[in-house]
C-alpha cells in the first residue's frame, strides 16, 4: 500500500517536474494576407521572441489564419495579430472578446473611438498622423512633408539596429506595417515572459505595459486601445523630425496626437 502510494507520489513528482521544465509553446494567431509586410514583421518579432524565450523556457509559434473555432478552443492561443479592415475587425473583436487582438494595418479613427475592450491598435491612426503634420508645420513653411509611424531611415534609439535586422532578413526596408507586426509579437511575448498568469494578458498589456518599440520612449496603451508613440516626419523618403520633439517632455506630449476619448 505504502509502496503504491510512494510510486504514485514519485510519478506525480516526475510529472510536475517534467511540466515545469518542458517548453510551453504559445500560439499567436495571424489573420490577413500572409504575403504582406505585416506578416514579415510578425516573423521577425517571432524570431526575436524565441531568442528571449530560449533563455526563459518559452517558445512561440504563429498560426496563420486560424478559424474562429480554433481561436476559441485552442487554450494556448493567447493573442491574434490582424491585418484586416475596420468592418472585419469590429465583427472579429465581438466574436473573440476574451482574446487581445492587435490591429497592425487599420488607421480608422472611428474604430478607436468605439473603444473595443480587446482591440489594441499598434499602427498609428489617421488623426495621429494629421496632428503630427499640423504640429510640425507650426511656424514652418509648408514643405510637402509626410507623417508616418515608422521609417527605415530612423537611426536613433537603436532603430538602426532593428531596421538593419529587418533589411537583412527580408531584403527590403522596414515599413510601418512591418514594424507594427514586429511590435505586436514583442509586446505579447515580453508580457507573457513577465506574467505568472498568461490568462490576464489583456489587462496586463493594457495597464502595465512599458514597451521598448525602439523609438526612444516607453510605450503604453491609451484607454481606447491606441499605442502611445511618437510620429516621424519625412521628406523625400528621409526622416527629418519627430513629433513630439525628442526631449525631457516627450512622454507627456504623446497624447496630443489623435483622439483619446471614447464615444461608445
Amino acid at each position, binding site marked *: 500500500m505504502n509502496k503504491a502510494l510512494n510510486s504514485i507520489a514519485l510519478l506525480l513528482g516526475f510529472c510536475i517536474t517534467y511540466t515545469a521544465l518542458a517548453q510551453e509553446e504559445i500560439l499567436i494567431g495571424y489573420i490577413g494576407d500572409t504575403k504582406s509586410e505585416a506578416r514579415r514583421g510578425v516573423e521577425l518579432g517571432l524570431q526575436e521572441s524565441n*531568442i*528571449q524565450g530560449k*533563455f526563459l523556457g518559452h517558445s512561440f509559434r504563429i498560426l496563420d489564419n486560424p478559424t474562429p473555432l480554433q481561436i476559441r478552443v485552442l487554450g494556448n492561443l493567447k493573442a491574434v495579430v490582424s491585418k484586416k479592415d475596420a468592418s472585419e475587425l469590429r465583427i472579429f473583436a465581438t466574436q473573440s472578446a476574451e482574446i487581445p487582438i492587435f490591429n497592425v494595418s487599420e488607421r480608422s479613427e472611428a474604430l478607436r473611438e468605439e473603444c473595443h475592450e480587446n482591440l489594441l491598435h499598434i499602427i498609428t491612426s489617421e488623426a495621429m498622423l494629421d496632428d503630427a503634420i499640423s504640429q510640425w508645420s507650426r511656424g514652418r513653411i509648408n514643405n510637402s512633408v509626410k507623417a508616418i509611424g515608422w521609417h527605415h531611415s530612423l537611426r536613433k534609439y537603436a532603430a538602426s*539596429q532593428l531596421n538593419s535586422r529587418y533589411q537583412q532578413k527580408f531584403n527590403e526596408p522596414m515599413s510601418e506595417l512591418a514594424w507594427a507586426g514586429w511590435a505586436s509579437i514583442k509586446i505579447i511575448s515580453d508580457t507573457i*515572459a513577465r506574467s505568472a498568469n498568461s490568462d490576464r494578458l489583456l489587462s496586463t498589456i493594457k495597464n502595465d505595459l512599458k514597451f521598448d518599440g525602439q523609438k526612444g520612449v516607453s510605450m503604453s496603451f491609451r484607454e481606447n486601445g491606441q499605442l502611445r508613440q511618437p510620429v516621424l516626419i519625412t521628406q523625400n523618403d528621409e526622416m527629418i523630425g519627430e513629433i513630439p520633439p525628442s526631449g525631457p517632455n516627450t512622454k507627456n506630449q504623446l497624447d496630443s496626437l489623435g483622439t483619446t476619448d471614447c464615444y461608445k
Partner: protein
Amino acid sequence: MLKNLLLFFILSNFSNSYAASNRIFVSNEYGNSVTVIDAKSNTVIKNISVGTRPRGIGLSPDKTELYVAISVDNQIAVIDTQSLQIVRKFKSGDDPEAFAVHPNGNLYISNEEDAKASVYDPKTGALLAEIEVGIEPEGVAISPDGKIVIVTSESSNMLHLISVPSHTILRNILVGARPRSACFSLDGTVAYATSEISGEVKKIDVASGNILGKNALMDSSAKPKDILLSRDGTQLYVAGGRANKVFFLDANTLELQKSIPVGKRVWGLALSADGRTLYSTDGVDNQISVIDTVSQTRTLTIPVGKFPWGIVIDD
C-alpha cells in the same frame, strides 16, 4: 607584524613599477577619437584618432594599456597609456559596443549586432570564447572575484549571468525595458542594473536571481545608462541620459538622494580611485562634467570631442 611589513613592501613595489598616469580617457563616438585629459590640471593633453565610432573604453589591470572598442571597424584599438600611441589593433567580432576587463586581463565584449558576447585575450588578439546572449547585448559587468560576468541584452530585456571560466550561462533575469548597464556590490552578492526605456534601476540578488528592489527614477524623462558604485559601497551613481542629470541613490534602499544637473544626454560615468571625483560624458554637449561626490555639486566642465560616450580614469 612582519607579514604586514612584507605586504607593505610588495604593495609599494607595485605602485612604483606602475605609477598611475593620472589621465582621463574619453571615447568620442562621432569624433572618431579619444580625448586625453590630465586629471590634476583638468586640461586636454591630446586627441587621438582611433577609427570609426569608438564607444566602449577600459584599462588593463596594470593600467599600462587602454582598450577602445571601434564599433564600425569591428576592432579593439590598444593605446599605451604613457606614450599615448596606438600600439596595435585586433579584430573583435561584429560591432563591438561595450566591454569590461577581467582581473585576469581578458576582455568580455558585447557584440551588438550578433547577439553574442565574446572573450578576447588582448595581448594576442585571440578569441577565447563566444557566448550566445539576447538581442542587442550592451552592458558588461564583472563581479569583484571575477567569477561572474553580467551581459545586458537591450532588446531582449535581460541580464545574462555568465560563469567564469566555464562561460556557461548561470541565469537569465528579466528586467525593465532596454537594460543598458550593470554593476556589482563590493561583496559581489548584489547586482544593480539600469533600464533605459522603463526608466528604472533594479537591485538583484545574484545567487537567486530575485529582484530585491527597484527605483523608478521619479523624473519621468530619466533614461538611465551607466551605473557605478561608490568606493565605500553605500551609494550608486546613475547617468540619467536625457534627464541631463546624474542621480545619487542609496545603494541599500535605492532611494534618490540627490539629482545633479549636468550636460545633455549623459551616458558615461567614471569614478576616481579615492572616490571623491565623478566624471560624466555629456554626449550632446560635447563635454564631460566633473562632480565632487562629497559636496554633491558639479565643479567643472571640460570640452572634449564630438558625442563623448565612454570614460575611464587611470589614477
